[in-house]
């Protein structure tokens, strides 16, 4: 899969890496069970810090898209479907839009919670 990061963008590099993987899962070019390059390798490839890559991988793990195992690296989980990845992308859009409006993190969570409140 193609990883691309732009150091001049306002989006943190780790999030850009996560977005690249998310996008690849969303468009079907990366499927469940596929192994992502090791953090150290990808960091050397892109000329970024290992911790930056691992921060991106950690995000994907929290979204349930990948599994991180010692020695086995990062593997795309069986639960990671294109639709699931698109949901993550939608959340990114929501956050970006809310931040543009000047909302704080708590206010953004509040917006989502309001939408979830039983009617």
């Amino acid at each position: 899969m193609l990883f691309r990061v732009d150091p001049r963008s306002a989006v943190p590099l780790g999030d850009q890496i996560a977005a690249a993987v998310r996008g690849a899962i969303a468009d079907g070019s990366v499927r469940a069970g596929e192994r992502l390059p090791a953090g150290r390798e990808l960091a050397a490839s892109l000329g970024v810090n290992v911790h930056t890559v691992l921060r991106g991988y950690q995000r994907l793990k929290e979204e349930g898209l990948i599994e991180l195992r010692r020695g086995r690296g990062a593997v795309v989980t069986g639960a990671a479907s294109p639709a699931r990845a698109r949901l993550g992308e939608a959340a990114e859009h929501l956050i970006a839009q809310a931040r543009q409006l000047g909302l704080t993190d708590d206010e953004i969570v509040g917006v989502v919670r309001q939408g979830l409140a039983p009617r």
Partner: protein
Amino acid sequence: MNPATPFTRPPADTLRVAIAAFPFLVAVAVVVGVHHQTADRLPDPLATHFGADGTADGFTSVHGFVLGIVLALLALGIGGAVLAHLKRLVPAAPWLLATGWSLAAVLAVPACATLLANAGAGRAEAARLPLWQLLPALAAGLLAGAVGLWLGGPRRRPEPSGAQGGPRLPLAAGERAGWSRTTGSPLLAALGLFTCCAGVLLGFVSGPFAGVALGLTGVVAGALASVRVTVDRRGLALAPALLPYAFRRIPLDRVTEATCRNVEPFAEFGGWGYRVRAHRSGLVLRSGEGIVLQLRSGREFVVTVDDAATAAALLNTLLDRARPHRGD
């Protein structure tokens, strides 16, 4: 004047079969002819195996020896003809024919030398065949192989991809990009696992040395069964998927252009695996889509991998970036 000899095109089906069988028939005729000429002077049994100093140390009956050689040549001739007839081996025909021609010479020449050495000595124990006598056999093998290769017609050149100047991937000025994907052969993985298990079993049955040797073979096969292909600002790298150490790197400054095309392992490389050929080398674990790097040395480096178009496009873009700095 005829501008083109008939053999500059790949020979037709029946002709190819005839070319494949021909050297073996000639070899049979020569061996039988030499036997006929020397029959009344041959000792029985013959000296048929010679030590490093050229003295005889193995003996076989005349009929057993001649019959064995003739049957072996006929069997190989039939095998060669059958292989030459197979449609899917047509692309490999020049090498197939070269191997057959070379094999026929390498078998027939020492057999004739053995018969002549026996006939000259009169007594089997006195027969001498010094080691340097193998040189004519090797020379004949190379010569016959070259003839077979020439008769097989020109090797098929892969058609260059139609894309003008190769594909590109749009990247912003400061943007960094890397492409990474694993390629593999499930068959090789299964083979590696099977060999490892056989190694463990053999280790228990017949001692640790054989077991470890077989086990290691299995590990190597398994390691090559899944390979990570990386394309980035440094060039192209191949590493076992489970180990982060590249076993092959092609730095960007050795590449002139990258393209993507369908790769036929058998026709272009004579098989699967890490292959080295006269004008190209590479890792071909399956047929189908692959990245093709044109190297400055004029050679090609090929890797079969999915999504090769993206990898080739990225490489070309990175090459464009590097070009102003390297001055071409």
